[in-house]
Every structure is written in C-alpha cells, then in structure tokens.
C-alpha cells in the first residue's frame, strides 16, 4: 500500500473527482473499503502468526509499526479521495467518512480475530514489567494504548482486563508482603543488621502503598486516559489496603501509637479514609485509649500523679489526633467517649485527685514560671474537667481546697484563682462557680474592711496593730465546726471592737468567730534571742498562757483555754513533742497524757529567726473526704426529690418507667434505681405524691 504509484497524486485526485461526477461514488467507496480490509487482514494475520511463538516484544513492535504506517497512509488516502468524502459520503446517509471507515476496518479485523485478546495480553505484560521495575517497551505501550483509544476499544475492552490484571497483581503482592510483616523495632532494641529481603514493617508497607499509588497516578498521566485514574487507584488501594485493614491494624497500630509515629499514622489514616475503613480505625483507636486509660485508673495507689499522667496522655493523644488524623470528628468523638468512660471508672476519685492537683498548682508559684505558663496548664485541666461526671462533687472538693488556700494565705496568685473560676464558669455556667467566686470576693472585702477598721474610731481605741480579720459569708464556704476556745484577753478585746465596727456597717448579721481557722505571729524572747513563731490561733493561745507563769499542768491549761481533750492534746503535742519544742513536758514522751505538766522552753534553739510550728494532723483528710461525700449525697437527694416533683407537677400523673426516663434525663449525676425508689417512697410517705389505687405503677401528683 505504501508503494509509490505510477500516476501523480494530483492525477489520482482528479480521476476520483471525475468518477464521482459520473455517479461512481458508491463503487469507489466500496472498492477502497475492500482494499483496506484485505490489506489489514493480511498484515495482522502475518503478525499474528509470529505471535504464536510468544516472543511478545517483536509482535508488539510490529503491531505498533503497522499502526503507525496505517494511520499515515490512511491520511494520504483520505486526501486522494477527498472529493469522494465531500460529495458521496456527505450526501449519503449512514456512510462513514473515509477516515472513520479506515479505523473501523482495523477495529473489525481486531475484533474478528483473536488478535485483540492477544494484544491486550501483551500490553498488560508490558505494564507488569513496568510494575516489577523490569525494562519495558514504553514507546510501543504509549502508541498501542493510544490505538485502542482511537479504535474505541479502550473503555469497553481494555479497561476491564486492565483492572482485573491490576487487582490480580496487587492482590498477590499484598498477600506476599502482609504474610511476612515484621514487628516494629523500638529504638531501645538493637536494630537487626539487615531485614530479610521482602520483609516489611507496617509503616514500611504503608510507605510502599503510597509509592505504588504514586506510580499508578503517573501511569495514568503517561499513557492512560485521565478518566481511568479513579478506577485504577481505587482498585489498587482496595487490594493493597482495604482487604488487609484488620491485619494492618491488629499487627502494629498500638506499637505505632506507642512510638508516636505521627507521619506513619498519617499514612494509615489517609489510606483507610480512602477505602472507607475509618470505622475500623475508630475501633482500634478507642480500644487503645481505653487500655492505656484503664491502666492508669486501676493502679492500686492513686495520687495526684494520676492527674499529670492523664494530662500527659491527653496531650499525646491530641497531638496524634491533630497531626495524623486531621482532627477527624469521628475519631475525636471516640476518644472523648472513652476518656469519659475510664476517667469516671472510680466514681468520685478523679474529682478528688484533680482538685488536689489543682491545689498543688495554685500553691506553687513555680508553675507560673514554667514553659507553657499556668494558663495553658489550667486550660488542659479544664479539658479533662469536661470529662468528669458528678461536677457537684468536684465543686465541693474544690471549695474545700480553695477555702484552705484562701484562709491560710497559701494561694500563689489571686489572679490565677479568678482565671480558673472563669474557665469553670465557661464550662458549667455562672451558677456553678457562684459560691467559689463569692469566696474570693469575701477575701477582697475582708481586706478592705480591715483597713477601714484600722482607721475607724473602734480600731484606734483597740490599738489594733497586727489585727486582721477574714469575714466569710457562711453560705459560700464549707461549714466548719465551731470550736470552744478562750482566747487571750488582748485578742478578745480587739475582736469585740471589730464586731462593734462590723455591726455598724452591716445590719442584721451575726459574726461567729472560728478560732480553728485563724493564725498568729508571735514574737518570743528565747535565751538565744528573739524569734518569730507562726502558729495556729489555738497553739498561740496555749503558748501565751506561759507569759504569766513558767509552768502549767494539763488541767490548768484546759481550764484556761476551754479546749476539749482531743484538740488540746494535739496542740500540746505539736508544741512540746514536735520538731520545734517551745514547751517542755514532764514526764518526757511522744504522747500527751492528762497528768502531764508543761513549762516554757527558754532554751529553744533554731537556726531560723522565723519558725513555723506545724500542727499534728488528725486523720483529717479522710474525715473531710467523707464529710464532703456525705454532704453531696444529701444535696443530691434533695435534687432528686425536686426533680421528681417538678416532673410530676407538670404531668399530674405518670407511669413509673416514664418517670424514670425523664428523671435520668434531668439529673446530671449517676444514681441507682434503688436510690430513686427510696426517694419516691419517702415522697409518698410525706404526701407529696401517691400511687394510683388501681394501677400501682402509676404515680399521681398531690397538690
């Protein structure tokens, strides 16, 4: 067909024109078609015959050459028969242009013979070579794929086989690699000299998958049509990842999180996201968080280090969530749920430990100087606080600690106290922090009050040098047991003057002194020299008795102070048997007996000028904790009662189960059904409600 013709091309064109003018168009068309068909059939069967020896390369090359030549010549033929194209073809229905007809001929030839299948198999063979990183005939590949596109065989015929082959290839590869996954080596362990070839860890495998996807994307750009990209990539990732999701996660997920391999986890996340397997990731993430959390919570001796451990854990998990999982909502939600579950797994324990931890932070000024600053730390604590159930219990503990900090002047910064309360208010509303804020205001008000007192008439009369008073609004503060104590006359006088002054300022209020909360600074002349002693008011009162007499018996001290045995014994113990012995005791021993007698220890020595005399702690902490809990229990009981009555009042009558559902929806703390039943019984007893006579599970509201 490519042989030069004896006639010139223009001559041929004119001949064609002449024939067309004489209505021979259809004959010429048929002849051209027949000629193309016989030529194509001949060439392809020639190539096909060689093909049987399975030396793919040469067949591939020859087909490509045939195609290149054919297209060139077809263009020439089209030019020669241009007149035919313009007249006969245009004027006759259902006749394709010479160009289209020429392509259709080849298409038909390929389809009619088994050449088509063989060709596809050969192309796929080349692709596999490329994937194996073996040398492949890239130009032939490009040109033949283009041929399939031109012949309209690509989408229908080539793509399905191509995708099948792709799946097959990656399915084999993934099974081989997954089958021999290696464990992740932590840094602590010695790195093995060389990994056996083909053995990968999960992170390496994920990187490999990423590389494969990148290659396939490039393949599309190089010789496939763009629309095939989605199908190809999804087939690839589905074989490499989706089928092995469970295996990948179960083998190494924990180890990867433990080792904080953020970028590898990011790979894992994006791959699982692309195959819609986030559900599995969520499950593993939840299990991991739960496992670590419960380990922390179930330690036999919990102390405040639990809180810092929790904060550290949360920070670590959050950084993975952000860095690797793009703060995905589903995963964040799973993490939150699990946190909430384990953090509350020991009832009120976490509230107690957290308030204790906050107390330590608030007392030390070190935190403020640390890297993130106190504010950052408080924010992280609040994030944990959100998970805590039974916020009322938390508030009660917090209030107890805050009260101690304020009264003993142990808070490092009042501004920080305010900022913490502000954060808590943002979480729980202003009702929640109202009492706590009231406490801080009481402290500020007391300071002002004392200044005014000092400059007032009563103040000047009482010569109130060094007199300070803290006035607590009792409703805000924890309740303190009043303590009988006869304080020194001098102090008594100052307090009386203060009460007078206070009553002038505030009508209708009663002040009740709480000697067990106060403190005192005493200047004492010892043989060694003057010392300043920091004491509780009780200790000071006892010690001041010795300014008049050198020696006193237990009974005399008791008579002069009015203290009860327990309190007196512990006070004397702290003064006579503790670290700083400003009293001596006869007979000497560690414990105080009611028959002992005491004397001032003028020979007291201490390297410091200021000495703080510690108090002997009763088993107060336990008692206090119990008190707080009982108080909360009582408070909750009232809340349950109120909630039941609110619901019943609105409904007039209600079935037991419906009441329960509504009740549990309203209450913000966990309560057992037995407890609720008990409350209902007492309400019935008190005639606030009753059971229906006919239907005992129906409750009626009684106005």
């Amino acid at each position, binding site marked *: 067909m490519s042989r030069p013709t004896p006639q010139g091309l223009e001559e041929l064109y004119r001949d064609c024109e002449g024939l067309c003018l004489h209505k021979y168009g259809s004959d010429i068309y048929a002849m051209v078609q027949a000629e193309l068909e016989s030529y194509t059939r001949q060439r392809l069967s020639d190539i096909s015959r060689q093909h049987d020896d399975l030396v793919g390369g040469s067949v591939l090359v020859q087909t490509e050459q045939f195609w290149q030549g054919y297209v060139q010549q077809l263009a020439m033929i089209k030019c020669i028969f241009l007149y035919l194209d313009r007249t006969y073809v245009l004027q006759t229905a259902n006749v394709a242009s010479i160009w289209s007809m020429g392509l259709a001929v080849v298409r038909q030839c390929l389809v009619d013979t088994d050449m088509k299948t063989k060709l596809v198999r050969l192309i796929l063979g080349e692709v596999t070579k490329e994937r194996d990183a073996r040398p492949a005939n890239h130009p032939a590949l490009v040109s033949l794929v283009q041929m399939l596109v031109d012949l309209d065989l690509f989408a229908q015929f080539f793509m399905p086989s191509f995708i099948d082959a792709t799946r097959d290839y990656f399915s084999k590869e993934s099974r081989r690699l997954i089958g021999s996954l290696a464990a992740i080596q932590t840094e602590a362990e010695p790195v093995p000299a060389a990994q056996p070839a083909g053995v990968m860890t999960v992170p390496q495998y994920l990187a490999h998958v990423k590389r494969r996807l990148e290659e396939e994307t490039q393949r599309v750009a190089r010789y496939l049509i763009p629309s095939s990209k989605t199908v190809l990539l999804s087939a690839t990732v589905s074989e490499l990842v989706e089928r092995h999701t469970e295996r990948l996660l179960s083998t190494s997920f924990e180890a990867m999180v433990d080792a904080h391999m953020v970028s590898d986890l990011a790979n894992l996340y994006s791959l699982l996201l692309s195959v819609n397997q986030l559900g599995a990731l969520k499950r593993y993430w939840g299990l991991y968080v739960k496992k670590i959390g419960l380990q922390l919570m179930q330690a036999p001796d919990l102390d405040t280090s639990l809180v810092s451990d929790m904060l550290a854990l949360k920070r670590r998990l959050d950084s993975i969530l952000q860095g690797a999982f793009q703060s995905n909502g589903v995963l964040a939600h799973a993490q939150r749920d699990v946190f909430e579950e384990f953090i509350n797994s020991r009832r009120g324990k976490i509230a107690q430990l957290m308030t204790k931890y906050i107390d330590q932070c608030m007392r030390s000024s070190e935190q403020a100087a640390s890297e993130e600053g106190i504010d950052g730390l408080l924010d992280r604590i609040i994030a944990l606080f959100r998970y805590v159930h039974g916020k009322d219990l938390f508030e009660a503990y917090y209030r107890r600690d805050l009260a101690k900090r304020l009264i003993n002047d142990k808070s490092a910064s009042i501004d920080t106290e305010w900022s913490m309360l502000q954060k808590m208010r943002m979480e729980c509303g202003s009702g929640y922090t109202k009492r706590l804020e009231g406490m801080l205001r009481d402290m500020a008000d007391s300071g002002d009050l004392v200044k005014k007192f000092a400059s007032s008439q009563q103040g000047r009369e009482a010569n109130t040098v060094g007199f300070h008073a803290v006035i607590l609004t009792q409703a805000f503060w924890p309740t303190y047991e009043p303590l009988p104590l006869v304080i020194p006359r001098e102090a008594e006088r100052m307090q009386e003057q203060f009460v007078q002054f206070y009553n002038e300022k505030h009508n209708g209020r009663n*002040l*009740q*002194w709480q000697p067990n909360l106060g403190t005192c*600074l005493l200047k004492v002349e010892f043989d060694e020299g003057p010392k300043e002693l920091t004491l509780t008011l009780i200790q000071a009162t006892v010690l001041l008795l010795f300014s008049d007499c050198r020696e006193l018996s237990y009974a005399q001290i008791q008579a002069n102070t009015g203290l009860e045995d327990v309190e007196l014994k512990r006070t004397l113990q702290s003064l006579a048997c503790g670290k700083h012995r400003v009293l001596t005791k006869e007979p000497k021993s560690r414990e105080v007996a009611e028959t002992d007698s005491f004397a001032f220890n003028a020979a007291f020595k201490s390297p410091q000028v200021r000495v703080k005399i510690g108090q002997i702690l009763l088993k107060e902490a336990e008692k206090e904790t119990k008190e707080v809990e009982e108080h909360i229990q009582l408070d909750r009981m009232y809340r349950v009662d109120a909630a039941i009555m609110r619901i019943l009042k609105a409904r007039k009558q209600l079935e037991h189960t419906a009441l329960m559902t509504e009740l549990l929806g309203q209450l913000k703390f966990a309560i057992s059904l037995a407890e609720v039943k008990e409350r209902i019984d007492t309400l019935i007893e008190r005639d606030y409600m009753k059971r229906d006579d006919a239907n005992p599970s129906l409750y009626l509201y009684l106005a």
Partner: protein
Amino acid sequence: MKLTITDWWSVAGWKWDVPDDDVCGICRAPFDACCPQCKIPGDDCPLIWGECTHVFHMHCLLKWLEAESSQQQCPMDRRVWVTAS
C-alpha cells in the same frame, strides 16, 4: 521571758441575725437558705426586717407587697408594713 502578739488573723463567718432554723414566713425556707427565686444565699438574697419585728427574705416580701391583695400589710400581723431602719 516575753511573748508578744505581732499579727493576729481571726476568721469569722457571718449569718443573718435570726434564731437558728427559723424560716421565712412567706416561702417557708430557712433564712440561712435563699428565697425560691435565688440559688445562692448571702448578700444577693438579703433579709428585711419590719418595724413589727417580722423578718422575711427581701425578695419574698417585695413580691408580696407588689400583689394588690397585700394592701401593703405585713403578712404576719396585717399591720401596714414599715421597714425597720
């Protein structure tokens, strides 16, 4: 031997100057607690004393006085309410 007080910190709590466990004649809640409208007792929910010596939560009494049926009388003794100064 010499002992001198340099600084003395006293702590006191204040309560309304009414008998313990006494309740407001209007809402029947203890004076130490607050009126039904308030959540937190203390300065924000003060008491009010009448010249007739009766005491109420201020919020309770004001609400009562606003009602026409009260005729500006003390709910306990029906004398015209005069706040004690």
